[in-house]
């Protein structure tokens, strides 16, 4: 069997079909000249790749970042914590998505997202996901459940590691509607996976409560589904924050 240059080129690119590949490998074992031709194809591929690879680590010019982010991007960056728009596989929990979509489809989210634009909203949608933004994103990233200002607009409940290793936190939005939810770290953002109206007539009383006790059943169920082991204690929570909530 003879092999064309196209065969050898496709082999070097890992694109040869199984049968031809096996035949070629057998032929290469017996024919050093053929093996050398293949080696040259492979070396060329690596050489071309290496020649352009440094472009990836160059700083991206500001004008390109501005073109991608669009007008007012500086302002947006302030209100919405940067996020990975497409969830990585480990964050694509279909059942969560369904659950969140279900809850969110109701009256809960509308008022928050459609609020007059002057006030930064605690939630933002992106690529079909609901992300924490504004005060909520800041609280999820920075506020420790062991040391919460009574006047803070967000109350963090428990922080825990999900079964896939990522960090998640429950929260209550104290202002207005007393919504409770659960968010998980997704890249540099917090994806809100469950959101529900707090069942206790809560914030009206004004007193500080353990947030976990105020969690609506839907949020509590999500927590039970996701949690691996016990919630984080104060020290592990502080350490997680220290590491930017990276698993």
């Amino acid at each position, binding site marked *: 069997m003879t092999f*064309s*240059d*196209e065969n*050898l*080129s*496709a082999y070097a*690119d890992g*694109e040869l079909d199984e049968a031809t590949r096996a035949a070629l490998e057998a032929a290469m074992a017996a024919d050093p000249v053929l093996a050398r031709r293949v080696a*040259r*194809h492979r*070396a*060329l*591929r690596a*050489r*071309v*790749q*290496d*020649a*352009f*690879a*440094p*472009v*990836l*680590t*160059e700083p*991206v*010019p500001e*004008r*390109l*970042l501005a*073109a*991608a*982010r*669009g007008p007012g991007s500086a302002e947006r960056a302030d209100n919405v914590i*940067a*996020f*990975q*728009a*497409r969830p990585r596989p480990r964050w694509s929990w279909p059942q969560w998505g369904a659950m969140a979509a279900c809850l969110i489809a109701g009256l809960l989210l509308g008022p928050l997202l459609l609020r007059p634009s002057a006030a930064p909203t605690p939630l*933002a*949608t*992106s*690529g*079909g996901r609901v992300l924490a933004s504004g005060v909520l994103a800041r609280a999820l990233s920075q506020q420790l459940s062991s040391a919460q200002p009574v006047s803070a607009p967000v109350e963090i409940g428990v922080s825990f590691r999900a079964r896939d290793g990522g960090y998640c936190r429950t929260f209550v939005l104290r202002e207005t509607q007393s919504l409770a939810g659960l968010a998980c770290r997704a890249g540099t953002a917090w994806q809100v996976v469950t959101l529900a109206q707090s069942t206790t007539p809560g914030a009206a009383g004004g007193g500080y409560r353990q947030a976990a006790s105020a969690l609506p059943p839907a949020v509590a169920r999500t927590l039970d589904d996701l949690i691996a082991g016990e919630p984080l204690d104060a020290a592990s929570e502080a350490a997680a924050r220290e590491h930017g909530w990276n698993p």
Partner: protein
Amino acid sequence: MPVDGLREELVTLLPRLRRFARALARDPHDADDLVQTAVERALAHAGQLRADAPLAGWMFGILRHAWIDEQRARGRRGRVLAAGVAAEEVADAAHGAPLDSIAVQDAVARLPEEQRLAVALVLVEGLSYKEAAHIMAVPIGTLTSRLARARDALQAMLGEPDGAGG
């Protein structure tokens, strides 16, 4: 898909788009112009991106069109060779930039357009033949033969790299 989500994904993709454009346009400034054009076109046509389609492939396709448009315009104006750029880079190389990269980039820049596209998509960006053929809107067989011819031409221009013999 929603424009906001697209914007964030584009930011993440910018380094790869710049690399792909560099393989096509050679001159870094021209390459970044192409990326900018492609990003603006993508945002203007965000509604055409299917939610399940890979963004990188879509963007490479848009960038390819922008490059082809630019080549046509340049052809009408008379071809401008980037001799000045090469001289600058050789000067940079004296300060440690790898000479082999310059040689390889120059060789790629001398390939005919269609071969250069195949090299940029498969060798530089690491796409499969199927993905690359789809972006170039040609059958896989056509892509395969363009790649083989491009490799021949590159080998002829570059010879064996130092220390890679044997």
